[in-house]
């Protein structure tokens, strides 16, 4: 990992709590639809409003998705119990949240980052989401609002809360972790993982310590982070704040802090002393969940390939390191790449195309024409520039790369024709040629660019730049000798 020592002499220690909404049809404990954002208070029922007399019944799919998450994170899947977390808040209709406390469904596990490092997972448990408050007046700011309005459409939506170990050492690590976690959640169909839309929410536990020490510093929990970008900013601000305190001889107080996107700072919400007394106790309206070995095996068998397995598979096929395949896997083009390589395409060129030329998606491109295109390119039938053009055609409309190349009038130039052209251009530009032959590295590079440009101009881009460079080098060597 890159050196993340943001502040010389200090190490930042980060643990993350990620809440992700599970992709079920109905809510965690009732048959109201898991859908919100539209007309307020439409997807409600006695349970999601916490009406007197209503009772929760657990959604089997939510449990299955939680187990998928647990398996994907190599967690211990264990018997679990729901508890009540008691606190008053208007968007929490029962004034307690049903959550898993001392007995979560997923225990210790880990997440593998693309660079191969593992971040510990302490637990991944099920709980229910709250309704949504809108603060009216005071510019929507909570402290200045005249009143608040509550929509319970989101109340009771199933969540999985994934708690990492304090294994990250900087904003970069945290970003890598969250991206990887999101890819996993999406890959296994557990959640859509959209941070900006709030279906994935991150709280950061940040502490700092002197480089070389091992004891954990006092941490602060930072809330209200709405994007990867703000997470990075919040971590950097918070780490700096803590280091400043310590360097000026003060102490870090254990606090919950609120990230403010507008002023780019974290603000104290409450101290450890003001922490809520949640009075957890086992939820008497629910019974324990003890997934059978058979059920877990069934879920495991149906699990799609995980991002880390896809990276490894592509790396093996391409003969590169798994970290070199991260972008391809992230773009979901690893099947295409693996198949193209299997069809004989040059692995390096395949990865270059995916990374540089397919940022907007593969469109109609399939493996066989992709492989054929790369073969034409490596065989010298197409230049890199021409290949890029044909690739765009394949993305737009599929088809045969040779046909596209012909339609563009791309034809492989024969080398003797090219040699004659190069010699002619050298003769036309003697001063530049002297500069190429006799100049320093910088001058030589500059003049190489000039001559390749001239050749391209003369051939309307159909010459292969690599070959032109080789010819220039040969001619110069001949003169120098």
């Amino acid at each position, binding site marked *: 990992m890159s050196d993340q020592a943001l502040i010389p002499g200090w190490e930042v220690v980060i643990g993350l709590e990620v809440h992700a909404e599970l992709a*079920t*049809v*109905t809510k965690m404990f009732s*048959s*109201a*639809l898991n859908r919100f954002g539209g*007309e*307020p*208070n*439409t*997807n*409600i*029922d*006695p349970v999601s*409003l916490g*009406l007197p007399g209503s009772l929760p*019944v*657990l*959604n*089997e*799919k*939510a*449990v299955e998705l939680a187990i998928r998450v647990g398996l994907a994170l190599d967690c211990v899947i264990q*018997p679990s*119990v729901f508890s009540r977390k008691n*606190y*008053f*808040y*208007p*968007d*929490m209709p029962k004034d307690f949240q049903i959550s898993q406390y001392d007995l979560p469904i997923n225990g210790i596990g880990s997440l593998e980052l693309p660079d191969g490092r593992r971040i510990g997972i302490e637990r991944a448990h099920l709980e229910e989401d*709250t309704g949504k*408050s809108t*603060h*009216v007046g005071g510019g929507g700011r*909570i*402290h200045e*609002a005249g*009143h*608040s*309005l*509550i*929509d*319970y459409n989101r109340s009771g939506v199933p969540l999985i809360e994934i708690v990492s170990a304090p294994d990250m050492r900087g904003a970069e690590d945290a970003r890598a972790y969250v991206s990887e976690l999101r890819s996993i959640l999406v890959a296994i169909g557990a959640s859509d993982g959209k941070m900006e839309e709030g279906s994935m929410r991150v709280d950061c536990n940040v502490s700092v310590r002197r480089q070389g020490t091992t004891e954990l510093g006092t941490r602060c929990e930072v*809330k209200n982070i709405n994007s990867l970008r703000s997470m990075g900013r919040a971590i950097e601000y918070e780490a700096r704040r803590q280091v400043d305190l310590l360097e000026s001889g003060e102490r870090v107080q254990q606090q919950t802090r*609120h990230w403010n996107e507008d002023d780019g700072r974290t603000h104290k*919400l*409450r101290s450890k002393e003001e922490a*809520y*007394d*949640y*009075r957890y*106790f*086992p939820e*008497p309206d*629910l*019974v*324990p*969940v*003890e997934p059978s070995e058979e059920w877990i095996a069934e879920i495991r068998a149906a699990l799609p390939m995980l991002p880390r397995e896809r990276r490894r598979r592509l790396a093996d096929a391409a003969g590169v390191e798994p970290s070199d395949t991260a972008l391809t896997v992230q773009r979901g083009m690893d099947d295409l790449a693996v198949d193209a390589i299997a069809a004989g395409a040059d692995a390096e060129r395949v990865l270059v195309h995916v990374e540089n030329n397919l940022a907007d998606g593969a469109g109609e491109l399939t493996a066989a024409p992709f492989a054929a295109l790369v073969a034409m390119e490596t065989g010298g039938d197409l230049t890199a520039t021409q290949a890029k053009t044909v690739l765009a055609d394949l993305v737009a409309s599929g088809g045969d790369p040779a046909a596209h190349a012909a339609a563009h009038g791309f034809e492989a130039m024969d080398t003797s024709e090219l040699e004659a052209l190069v010699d002619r251009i050298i003769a036309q530009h003697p001063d530049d040629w002297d500069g190429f032959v006799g100049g320093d590295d910088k001058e030589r590079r500059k003049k190489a660019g000039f001559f390749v440009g001239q050749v391209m101009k003369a051939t309307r881009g159909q010459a292969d730049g690599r070959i032109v460079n080789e010819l220039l080098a040969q001619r110069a060597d001949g003169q120098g000798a």
Partner: protein
Amino acid sequence: MPEKPRLNREDVAHVADLARLALTDDELDAFTGQLADVLDHAADLEALDLDGVPPMANPLPLVNVLRLDEPEPGTRADIRAEVLDAAPSVEDGRFRVPPVLGEAP
């Protein structure tokens, strides 16, 4: 009777606060005495050897009571009008409350 009271006025004031109840001074005195009586009675539990006895949260041995992830047809989910009509205060189809002040935990 125990030598030390099992709970005092401050404890009762604290739990009243946690439970969102306001007590007058007289009520605080009365409740403190009454709650202490109950806790004194419950002191008989202290003598019991409960080592290795598992706690019982529910008298039934049921596990894995699950429902299918399917919306329920019928009227139970269709209670919007009734519920909003019965609410103390509503605005734009949402429940209206005085300003909430702090963030949710």
